[in-house]
């Protein structure tokens, strides 16, 4: 349905987006994951036709949209990271204005406004000025404004930044419903791993303007399939114990945590008995032991050497 081919964008000689290839199939929910400055927003701006690429192409059903952006704009809803609303207008007035300039027919605009306000749960506050809303409520109106023309593709750029948990859950639920019930194709960018894990069928991981990994969640997790992650709670920790464990066969990494240590070892290697013995020798008690399922966060850490919030 929508794809980018070797998409690159330079700003003053610096590559913000570097030969990015991504695609979205109809009805999919795709995540674009990466830390701040990874190039997610620039990629989205190019896909949305707000920026021209330095090279490469964006194709909608096989046709380039670079020279003819009107085509994609008709079927695209964009929820920008910023609150792109008139603060001095009410939620209703904002939606009416954007609905009118999206050329939604007069006789159905009122109904659409009612629908989108219901979707984002702000029907009761529609007559209030946007500037009186909380951050979470503003973000919900921001989403509503992108839904007025029933877009086939919805791009959301970090829609949950800086909001309360209640609004965040509401937004995530809204996006999930749009994808599952209305079959809207979703491109969701975030640096919250759990959101992407919860919402998306496929994920692209970006860093330094490049896509460094992609695939379904299980495909990405298989990158870490050769390793086990073990969380160990100890009565206390000591440097001698950590050094001892590091010297075990098959142990690749030992990190100190708040409650004990985290061990990354070769998959299937049994280090438990050796660990307990070593701890006893040091006079330390093993209080809890858990094999952890790797997360996308672990995948990201493995690929980039840093966490998403770095």
């Amino acid at each position, binding site marked *: 349905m929508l794809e980018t081919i070797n998409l690159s964008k330079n700003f003053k000689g610096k590559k913000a987006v570097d030969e990015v290839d991504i695609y979205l199939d109809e009805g999919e929910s795709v995540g674009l994951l990466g830390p701040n400055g990874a190039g997610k927003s620039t990629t989205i701006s190019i896909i949305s036709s707000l920026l021209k690429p330095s090279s490469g192409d964006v194709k909608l059903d096989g046709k380039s949209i670079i020279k003819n952006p009107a085509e994609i704009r008709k079927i695209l809803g964009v929820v920008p990271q910023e609150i792109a609303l008139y603060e001095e207008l009410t939620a209703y007035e904002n939606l009416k*204005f954007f609905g009118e300039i999206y050329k939604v027919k007069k006789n159905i605009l009122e109904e659409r406004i009612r629908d989108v306000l219901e979707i984002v749960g702000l029907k009761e506050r529609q007559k209030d000025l946007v500037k009186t809303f909380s951050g979470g409520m503003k973000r919900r109106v921001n989403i509503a404004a992108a839904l007025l023309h029933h877009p086939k593709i919805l791009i959301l750029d970090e829609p949950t930044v800086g909001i309360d948990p209640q609004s965040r859950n509401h937004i995530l639920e809204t996006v999930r419903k749009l994808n599952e019930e209305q079959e809207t194709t979703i491109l969701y960018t975030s640096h919250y791993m759990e959101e992407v894990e919860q919402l998306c069928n496929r994920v692209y991981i970006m860093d330094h303007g490049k896509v460094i990994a992609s695939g379904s969640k299980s495909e990405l997790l298989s990158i870490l399939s050769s390793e086990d992650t073990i969380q160990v709670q100890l009565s206390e920790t000591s440097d001698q114990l950590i050094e001892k464990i590091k010297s075990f066969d098959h142990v690749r990494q030992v990190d100190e945590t708040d409650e004990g240590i985290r061990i990354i070892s070769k998959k299937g290697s049994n280090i438990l008995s050796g660990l307990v013995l070593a701890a006893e020798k040091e006079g330390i008690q093993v209080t809890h032991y858990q094999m952890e399922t790797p997360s996308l966060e672990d995948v990201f850490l493995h690929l980039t050497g840093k966490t998403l919030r770095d």
Partner: protein
Amino acid sequence: MGSFLKKDLLVFWRDRKEILLSLLLPIVIILLLNFAFSGLFDEGAESMDIDVAIVQQDNESIGLEQFEVRVNELDFPPAEKEALLTQATQISPVRLINEFFNDPEMKEWVSAQELGKEKATGLVEEGELDALITIPVGFTESVLSSILLGEETEKNLTINVKEESNEAGALQDMVTNYVNTLNFQFALGTAAEAPAPEPELPEGGREVVEGAQVYTMTQYFTVAIAALFCLFIASTVAMKTVTEKREHVFNRIILTNSKPFNYLMGKIISTFFMAWIQLLITFTVTQLLLDVFSGMSFDFWLGTFVVITAFSIAVSGLTAIFTPITLRLSDPNAANGIFTLIVMGMGMLGGSFFPIDFLPDWVQRIGEWTPNGLTQGTLLEWIQYGSFVDLILPIILLMGFFIACLIIGMFLFPRRERI
């Protein structure tokens, strides 16, 4: 386009601080200027009342006889002597002085009465009179010799006051001004060898054109300040684009496939309405508070309404240029600085800060081509002459200014990549 217009008007309306500034500031400034300058111009001047005594010591017929003797002593051809004597009988300096003080307009300022020297001196001493003007013995002969024979004036009018005051100063200025005018006009008449023209009275601070009414300083301030502040509306509306750009609303608008022309026309038409409303309110409120255009006819108000409408359209043309500039410049302060410079420059050249009559001709000519200068000049002429025909050309020029701005604005409007 209607959606953009509605939105722009609503956004402006909700910005109460901006609304109050735009609508009230010109009125406040007009009121302040009016109070600050009222003492120097019309109303204050009219309230000035000077009581003066004229002491007539000269005998006009003796003066004429003495002048005749003097002329006959000269080595002139008889025909020339005859002409000089004829002119002398026509001039009559004492009569001119009396006419000057008895002119109806002068009587609004000065109450003059002929008195003997002793009585007049006594009244001045007692403070009953502001001044005493003496027409000395030999005045007629001296003035005629000065005007017609080019000799030094030996006898001058003398003004005696008990103490210096605004009234005495004003009287002195008036008499000096009158005598200078008298001398100048007779000198012109003599140089051209034509019959001496009747001297005109000096008008003291008012420009008088034949067949025209005068405009007051209050009217001038009202027209000039209203025109200046109206220009600022263009800048205010254009700067709203900066907010739209900063808050990414403009990107959302682009994504709706809206035409730049519609966006721009929304700004232009909203500027027109705001400028128009501002001007109407300024003229109406100042009229109600100060009676600026006292006793003007329905035709006057109709013509003023037409000029105000044309000027508002011209101001909206400025928005057509300012808006794309805000979109092109990444620094909003730079955009604001440019607009302020343009508006203040137009205000200065167009005479919105002060009358520009004293500036070089070429500067005045440029000023007449600014929309505010053109409007100001047109309205002030409209006050004086009230001729509808005189409004046609300025209105065409204001419309031309709007169309030119619109074309430039469309040309300047940035393409997608530059926003």
